[in-house]
Structures are given as C-alpha cells and as structure tokens.
C-alpha cells in the first residue's frame, strides 16, 4: 500500500502541469448572460448555442465520429428546399450578396437593407475581386470544376443552407437554417457558384 502511494506520488510529480480545469457549462452560461445585459428579450437564443453548437464548442470543432454523424443527421433535417426544386437564381444578385456583410449586428436595427452573405470575407470567388479572405477554401471555378452537374447544384444549395449536413462543425454560418438569408437569396448564391455565365466560372 505504502509503496503504491509512493509510486503514485512519483508519477504525479512527473506529470506535466494539468491542463486548464474544466468549466461547468452553467458557469459559462451565467457569465455570458451577465456580460450582455442590454440584449433584447428576443436575442436570448443568441447567447446560448443550440445542441450542435454546444457539441462543436466542446470539441473545438473536432467532434467524435458518432457525434459528427448525429450532427449531420440533425442538420440535414433543417433544410427546406425550394418548392419547385429549382435551386438556381440570379448570379448577379448572388455577387451583390457575396459582397455584403450587412445584417444582424446590433447596429443593423431596424434593418435598412437585405442581409448579406459576406462570402468574400472568407472565400475567393470571382477573379475581379482581389479583396477576399482565406478562412474558407477558394470557390473559384466552383461550377466548372463540377461540370455544372445538377447534383452539384443541389449540393451547393444544401451546403449554403446548412453546411453541417456535409461538414459537421464547419465554421461556415448556417445561412438557411439560421435565417440569415432567404431561400431566394440562397438560390442567387448558388447561381453565382454554379451558373456557367457566372464570372466565378467564366473567369471574367
């Protein structure tokens, strides 16, 4: 017994400093609630992520396999498809919303214009726009690289609506599921990516 304790003590001393102690989720919730006292009542849901976000936060966006599968299934279930199954809108409108970061910030109320998708903040799209971010992959020639296939058009719609159905704990906002963009706007963004006339694909 004594030897065991001695060995335990030794192995303990040899261990590196313990990683950050665990924070009780309720503690974090309380701190966040207190930190945003001016939040309007209908913003309460902004302070606490839903189940998927809680799983992504806890795993630092690297969920275990079974959790990832559960997220994909759950998020797939949120997708609302256009009634006529036409996924492609107007690429010119898509380009405008890709440029715009407007919407849902506390200075954006009452709304003065439609919400933007702010795609260029994170992605390369058209050749002409050189001010693009790199948090997400380049989407240059997105449709061309997929041979403009109808399945790829639908898949683009789904990823824009809720990227977690394809990439669990993706860092991209759930534009459809979180009602950032309307179905019509998502179709416009799909056209920017997938239309053969779109500068994303023509390179002009």
């Amino acid at each position: 017994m004594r030897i065991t304790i001695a060995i335990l003590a030794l192995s303990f001393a040899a261990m590196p400093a313990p990683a950050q102690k665990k924070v009780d989720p309720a503690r974090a919730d309380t701190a966040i609630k207190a930190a945003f006292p001016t939040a309007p009542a209908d913003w309460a849901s902004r302070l606490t992520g839903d189940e998927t976000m809680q799983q992504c936060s806890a795993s630092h966006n690297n969920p275990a396999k079974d959790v990832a599968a559960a997220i994909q299934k759950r998020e797939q279930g949120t997708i609302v498809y256009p009634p006529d199954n036409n996924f492609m809108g107007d690429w010119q409108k898509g380009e405008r919303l890709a440029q715009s970061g407007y919407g849902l910030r506390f200075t954006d109320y009452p709304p003065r214009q439609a919400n933007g998708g702010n795609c260029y903040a994170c992605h390369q799209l058209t050749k002409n726009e050189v001010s693009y971010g790199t948090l997400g992959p380049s989407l240059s020639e997105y449709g061309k690289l997929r041979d403009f296939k109808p399945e790829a058009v639908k898949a683009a719609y789904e990823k824009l609506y809720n990227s977690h159905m394809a990439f669990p704990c993706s860092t991209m906002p759930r534009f459809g599921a979180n009602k950032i963009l309307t179905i019509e706007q998502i179709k416009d963004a799909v056209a920017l990516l997938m239309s053969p006339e779109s500068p994303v694909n023509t390179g002009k």
Partner: protein
Amino acid sequence: MKRSLVMLAVAFAAVAAIPRAHAQDAETEKAIEKYRAMLREDPWSNPGYLDADRGEALWTTRAGPKNASFEQCDLGKGPGKVDGAFAELPRYFADADRVMDLETRLLWCRETLQGLSAADYVKRPHPAGGQPVKEIGAIATYVASKSSGQKFAARLDRPQEQDAVALGETLFYRRSGPFDFACATCHAQSGLRIRLQGLPYLAEKKEASKVIGEWPAYRVSNTHVMTMQHRLLDCYWQMRMPELQMGSDASVALIAFLTKQAEDGEIAVPGLKR
C-alpha cells in the same frame, strides 16, 4: 512631431487612395508597410501618445463627489504605483474580491476613490468612430504605456485567476449567435485573413505574444485609440452578439486567457493598427 503627423497623413492618404476593386494584395501591403516604417523611424508620431498624455493628466486630476484623483489607485503594486503595473494584470484584487483587467480596475478606482458610478460609465464606455477614447481608455493608455518594453508577467496562478483563464478559454471556443461564430472561428489557425486583413492566431502562444501587448492601440480605420475591452466588444459585434459589457466577468476572463496566451510577450503601447 507636427511634420511626422503630416507625413503620416500623406502616407495614409496614399493607402486609402488605392481603389479597392483594383487593389493588389502586394501593393496594399507595401503601402501599409511604408506607413509602419515611418512610424518606426519616429515612434512619437503615433497619435495614441496624445491620449496617453491626456490619461496622465486625468490620473492626477481631482474629480467626482469625493473630489479625488486616481493617485491612490492600487493597480496591484501599491497605491499610485503605475510603472510596470500593466505587465502584471489581470490579477485578483482582494479589496474587490474579483479578478480585474486594467480597465475594470480603473473603473473600480474611479467609483471607490472619486465616487463616480461604474454602472453609469459602462452605459457608453467606448468612443464612436472619430471621437477620442474616453476617460478610462485614456488613463489605460497612459498606464499601459508605462509598461512598454517590459514583458507580460501576470502570475495568473491564484485560484481565482486560474478560474478566470479557464473560463476565458471556454468562451474563446464558445459558438453562438445567428452566425455560429466563436473567437476561435477567426483566431484558431495561422496565416488566414478576412478580406485582406490578416488574423492573429490567438490560440497559439507565439502569435498571441506578438499582438496582445499592442493594446490599447491607435486604430487608423477608426481614427482613435481602441482599448482591449473595446476591441472585444467589436469582435462580439461582428459575431452578431449584443453589446459586451465593459468589466463583465466574461470580458475579464477573455482578457485573462489572452494575456496567459501572450505570456512573455513584449508590451508596446500604444500600438498602431490598420
């Protein structure tokens, strides 16, 4: 001094004059680098020093119902000790029984020494674009500049401080709001950018220690000094969250975590940001 400011203005106009649609990454970077080089040649040309000077004057100015100055304010090294105090913050203060960053401590001193309400101050604690940094921000710029050249050496080992760092780390990865953003969305990888703006990798010590010590900083796009509390509010604004309350436990926890990440990083206040 005056000449440097004029030269700065000219250099900046040159940067601003490049039409965005035709801006080339390299060209823009080059112009900004030229601007920074001019500042390095004459560090006193950073407009943030005007606010540090204003903060120094405010530190000794009597105000409030108690007609007192900040001179008895204890920033952790004893009443009135300013030199090197910022390098050891945030820390636990027994008199307030909480962990405080510099701005939160100044808010506390203002209330206890001068009798001016902290609750009133935090209703509008930060300047609008083009307006000078407010009173506590100016004093924070002064105090922090008195640790310039030193390394961050906050202990952060008392139980309350460890607790704050752990909470800050949790909040750094916490995703919420309509965009599902966390601090980690933009600051958990190296070498990435939003549009053309480079993003520091704050989840890693090497990059965090390079940038955290630059705040409060003169932010050229806002034409004023921005403090760390203000910078965090600005991040949460972009994350589509409500207004982060200055001095809240969450704000102090995030600053404690970032300071821990920046351990041994050099302090260079006021910094200069795009």
